[in-house]
């Protein structure tokens, strides 16, 4: 890039309307290494004139402690990166259940309907328990909808 006095370069921030940011990108002095963010996700909703911030919508970036982490941003050219097969539900099933089933079959520990006589933890897991265990995490990102703003009208009375 060459020697530049960084104070004289306007790096910019998230502020500014979309049109302003678009004109900045087309500017000949624009440095493409420093990005201009035009796609900012909302952190709430507009209710009439006011804008209501929902704290849960503000992204919380959690970065783990990276001291002594052997993984770095780039991969060395020397590494022979092997092509791995796709990890499907079938692979997971075979990893968790296959060995036990084969052993039970060999030792005749399966009953008339091919169910195990001595089930392991994974085999005795019912679908209801598994569903509840998965929901215990409390994460509603995939299971529950984000409420629309008109559905939040009830909250107004709480305030």
């Amino acid at each position, binding site marked *: 890039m060459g020697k530049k006095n960084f104070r004289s370069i306007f790096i910019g921030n998230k502020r500014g309307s979309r049109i302003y940011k678009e004109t900045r990108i087309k500017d000949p002095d624009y440095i493409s290494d420093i990005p201009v963010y035009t796609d900012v996700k909302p952190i709430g909703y507009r209710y009439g004139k006011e804008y209501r911030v929902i704290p849960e919508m503000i992204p919380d970036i959690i970065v783990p402690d990276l001291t002594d982490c*052997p993984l*770095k941003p*780039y*991969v060395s050219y020397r*590494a*022979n990166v092997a092509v791995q097969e796709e*990890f499907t539900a079938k692979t997971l099933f075979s990893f*968790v259940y296959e060995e036990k089933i084969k052993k039970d079959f060999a030792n005749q520990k399966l009953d008339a309907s091919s169910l195990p006589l001595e089930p392991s933890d994974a085999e005795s897991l019912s679908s209801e328990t598994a569903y*509840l265990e998965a*929901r215990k995490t409390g994460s509603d990102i995939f299971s529950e909808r984000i409420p629309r703003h008109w559905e939040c009208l009830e909250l107004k009375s709480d305030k």
Partner: protein
Amino acid sequence: MIQYLPYQRKRRTQDFRFTTNRPWTQEFKRENEGLPRSEVFIEPIKDWSIFRGDRVEILVGRDKGKHGIVSQIFEERNWVIVNGMNWYYRRIGESDDYPGTIIRQELPLLVTTEVSLVDPSDNKITKVVWRYTEDGEKVRVSSRTGRIIPVPAAANETYDYKVKSAYLEGDKDTKSDVVEKVTFQPELKTFDMDVMKSMGIEEDRTPKKSYWY
């Protein structure tokens, strides 16, 4: 009818005149600043057969009949630059008082008509075909003698390394032994459950039943 999308003219190769200056250089930018020049017609080559470090014979010009080593390749123009061949004199650093230093600059040669690969067994020109060996390796075979002409090692050279195994790992590079290690242990857990386990979060409460109507 209202046109909602603006007309976006795609950038075509004809909009640029490719030269011996690489596209990211200032010289290329200067050459392509003005109006786009007339299109250069290039013969499309299906299997590119000449690589850096190959011995070739020059078929035209002052150096006709001479052998040289390929030092640079420009696939966009079907050009090669043969080291020390097909040169011309030019001056560098000319100014009002200084006449400039005279240097030799090689001119590019067309791969299709002006240059030909040399068979190492008898040092004569030959046409080359790509074939597969018994091991499944794709190799160049001379159509005249039938001898395999191996691709030179200089063809796999890059700015970062001469040979991949000789690459010097930097601070931001993950070491090769770390990359090759497989540490994935499949478990009967969802992604969220796995994160909870690794963070040591324990949850006893069960969520209430919810219904979709």
